[in-house]
């Protein structure tokens, strides 16, 4: 079974039940393969099922629906206009560049997927319309790009990757039926089998098995799933969500005696799993089928994904409010001095009241549009957030002085690069009894170099104070609309507490707590172990921060720069 054949099968399934299955995450760059897949998807959709495209810059008025301005003015009464979501009812909505979807849009799509209804409470209108749609997320992210919204991706049954499919692999879709094996014998308890398989594959969310169950039912025409359908559903739905390569022992343990004895009155009598002594049980075969399509090295990927810090989501704090440059984020009421006047939205807000205001006003001229201050709408803009790399440098006596020199070298190299990228750099040093901001976030290369040259060394290691200061600075950076990256250079051997007193145990515990709160902030971190030999304490610290750990026993500035580059 080739990847392309599976992709085509996914297209047919998604087209057959758009809302029930949620849709597909398609990981692929723009190109002929993706176009061919989308064409196959369009062919698979029946005429009654629309296929619409959603631009990332869509406004709420267009997405959810709102007041139809020309019709309202013409009719003299409010006329509602359906939004894109309602127009796509029954079909599929294609979202290009899904990895750049804003959290607000992702949440609106997720809510529509959950409810199958779009509720509009805007512009003086309150109504709901059916929007039983599925979503095709075109993920064009590469390498280190943030993944598509996990909450949204989890709702879609299928995740496919077309990036490894060559043009030569493309075969025209055969007119195959949906069903894999419509005549087979139904499985005793497909729900239990799929749950066990999901657990063996390390799938935490319950939507994996739930959606797999739906796919299996769809494959068998709505009846209880057959074995072949269960295996196919597991391969299509569960395999891409796997976070671990299953071992058969685990599945054995899982399938042993854990058949739940629940009092659900509707339940079929609990049946035993595949009889022992008849070769591998169904869930073992199912896991095997999934394992066959898992990419090699999945475990390594999973570990990496698990150890990667939470990507800072572009939330409210990241948007410089009322700034006048960048991407527009929609209109809101306000005076033009707080933003740029949005003429169309202002007219839209004023339109419904015209007749009323004419009645009140003294002037008989009926063609003048009466706009009041409360009608004014302004547009807000969101700026692309720039990265600010915060170096927290351990300048204590235990971090040997030559390493401090190396750290300075790395920062200088990064400065040169940051200058071309318009990124900013800040340097914190901690030594003796506290932390000191050596260099506030800056792009000024000359100033940065000067302050670094004067960086002193020696004294104890107040690690917790250093991390606290880094967290504070990261917060400040984020408030200003930037994306902070904290790089800690230390040997992890804390010996000064927050209050400035000596004490190794207390200082170590405080440092771990400070690291954990840094993680809680969702700041991306990287810890570079500057000790002569990799230190266990430094590794634990990196873990607590949720950041990457990079032991550089003999760090040179070039290697360090490369490490920072990949962390960003």
């Amino acid at each position, binding site marked *: 079974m080739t990847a392309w054949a599976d992709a085509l099968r996914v297209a047919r399934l998604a087209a057959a039940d758009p809302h029930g299955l949620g849709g597909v995450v398609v990981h692929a760059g723009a190109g002929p393969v993706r176009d061919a897949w989308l064409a196959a998807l369009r062919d698979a959709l029946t005429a009654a099922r629309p296929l619409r495209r959603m631009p990332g810059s869509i406004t709420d008025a267009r997405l959810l629906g709102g007041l139809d301005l020309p019709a309202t003015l013409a009719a003299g009464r409010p006329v509602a206009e359906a939004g894109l979501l309602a127009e796509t009812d029954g079909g599929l909505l294609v979202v290009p560049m899904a990895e750049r979807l804003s959290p607000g849009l992702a949440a609106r799509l997720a809510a529509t997927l959950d409810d199958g209804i779009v509720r509009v409470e805007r512009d003086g209108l309150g*109504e709901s319309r*059916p929007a039983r749609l599925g979503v095709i997320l075109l993920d064009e992210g590469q390498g280190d790009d943030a993944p598509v919204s996990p909450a949204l991706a989890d709702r879609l049954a299928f995740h496919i990757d077309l990036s490894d499919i060559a043009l030569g692999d493309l075969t025209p879709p055969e007119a195959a039926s949906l069903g894999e094996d419509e005549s087979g014998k139904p499985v005793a308890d497909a729900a239990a089998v799929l749950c066990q398989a999901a657990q063996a594959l390390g799938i935490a969310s319950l939507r994996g098995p739930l959606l797999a169950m739906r796919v299996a039912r769809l494959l068998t025409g709505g009846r209880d799933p057959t074995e072949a359908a269960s295996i196919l559903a597991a391969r299509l739905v569960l395999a891409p969500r796997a976070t671990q390569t299953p071992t058969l022992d685990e599945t054995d343990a899982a399938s042993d005696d854990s058949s739940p004895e629940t009092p659900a009155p509707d339940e079929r009598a609990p049946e035993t799993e595949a009889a022992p002594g008849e070769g591998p049980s169904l869930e073992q075969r199912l896991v095997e089928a999934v394992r066959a399509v898992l990419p090699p090295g999945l475990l390594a990927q999973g570990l990496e994904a698990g150890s990667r810090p939470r990507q800072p989501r572009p939330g409210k704090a990241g948007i410089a409010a009322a700034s006048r440059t960048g991407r527009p984020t929609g209109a809101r009421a306000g005076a033009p001095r707080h933003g740029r006047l949005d003429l169309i939205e202002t007219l839209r807000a004023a339109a419904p009241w015209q007749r*009323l205001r004419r009645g009140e006003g003294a002037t008989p001229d009926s063609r003048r549009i009466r706009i009041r201050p409360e009608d004014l709408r302004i547009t807000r803009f969101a700026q692309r957030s720039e990265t600010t790399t915060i170096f927290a440098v351990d300048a204590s006596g235990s971090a040997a002085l030559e390493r401090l020199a190396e750290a300075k070298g790395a920062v200088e190299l990064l400065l040169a690069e940051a200058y071309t990228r318009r990124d900013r750099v800040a340097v914190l040093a901690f030594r003796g009894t506290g932390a000191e901001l050596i260099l506030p976030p800056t792009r000024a290369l000359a100033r940065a170099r000067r302050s670094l040259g004067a960086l002193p060394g020696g004294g104890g290691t107040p690690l917790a104070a250093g991390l606290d200061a880094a967290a504070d600075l990261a917060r400040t950076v984020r408030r200003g609309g930037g994306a902070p990256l904290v790089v800690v250079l230390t040997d992890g051997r804390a010996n000064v507490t927050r209050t400035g007193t000596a004490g190794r145990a207390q200082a170590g515990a405080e440092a771990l707590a400070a690291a954990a709160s840094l993680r809680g902030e969702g700041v991306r971190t990287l810890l570079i172990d500057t000790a002569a030999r990799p230190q266990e304490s430094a590794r634990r610290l990196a873990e607590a921060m949720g950041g990457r750990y990079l032991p550089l026993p003999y760090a040179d500035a070039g290697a360090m720069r490369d490490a920072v580059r990949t962390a960003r």
Partner: protein
Amino acid sequence: MIVNGSTRAMSREPASLPHLTAQIGTIRVSDRAKSPRPDTVPHSAPSVFPFSAIVGQDEMRQALLIAAVDPSVGGVLVFGDRGTGKSTAIRGLAALLPPMRAVVGCPYACDPARPGDLCPRCRDHAGALETHAVPVPVVDLPLGATEDRVVGALDLERALAHGQKAFEPGLLARANRGFLYIDEVNLLDDHLVDLLLDVAASGVNTVEREGLSLRHPARFVLVGSGNPEEGELRPQLLDRFGLAVEVTTPTDLPTRIDVVRRRDAYEHDSTAFRAAYAAADEAIRENLTRARAHLPSLTVPDATLEAAARLCLALGTDGLRGELTLMRTARALAALEGAETVGRDHLARIAPAALRHRLRRNPLDESGSTARVARAVAEVLAP
């Protein structure tokens, strides 16, 4: 000139709004919710997953039941990933609540048994108010909702067609005496959240916009959901919610299988599924009715009050809201369980939900707030 029978005149409040008299005389109230447009679907989906069929999530279910017994506890905040059954639970609960008596035709569904909370129109009504039984409302606040629809605004249709100033009640009016559910509280605009919390605390919605000026009752249980991963909530906002519960995806296999199985059965044949759980839902409904009747007679003994105070002191919660909520929720829990008195046991069990979101951040203590409450409970309430 009244368009149809469902719109009525509502006299303004004489004391607070003298300036309007000259301007408009009376403010009319439109009631569009009663006459949905033909191209729309009803607000509540007809098919509801039974409350009693929800697997696990005991803490959330208990918190919702407590809020249903005593709405004065001040709302429920549910933390956790979307799709862990939050929205299902609130809809399921509303479906099993006993219907309430409301004044016929009142856009706020006024309660005839509470004369103090009547809307101005019902208060000024001459003679006996006609009442009927209506289901408890559950109102969704959808993402992208604008302020005019939340608090209510000038009725566009009548303004355009007739040049009349009429008030069209918003979501707050519809939620009166029921539940207002906000998914993803942290994605809602700050000014909307402030407004909602203010109304939820006072029970009155004050409208001052577009030349309208009026007040109407808006008592509802605010149920908010949020995902801490998507951004933290402000402490002032957290503190306003009575209970905070955490929901997680179940990790043990039997529970997971059970969830998938029931969902599959429900999707396969929802009628049969609902019928199978009708008796269990009925049992919960009866228990709720009993608990509501039992609640007024339950007094909290001094020893329990003192224990609650000591617990809050030990945790260093700000203000009196923590103690008050702890006391009220413990009483509602006792009522639900048909207990004779409110004891330490009730306090201990409800303390995590009532207090975990009121703790000050302690940078030195990184153990979760749930663990901190548990620790304090073990120390303070030890027999």
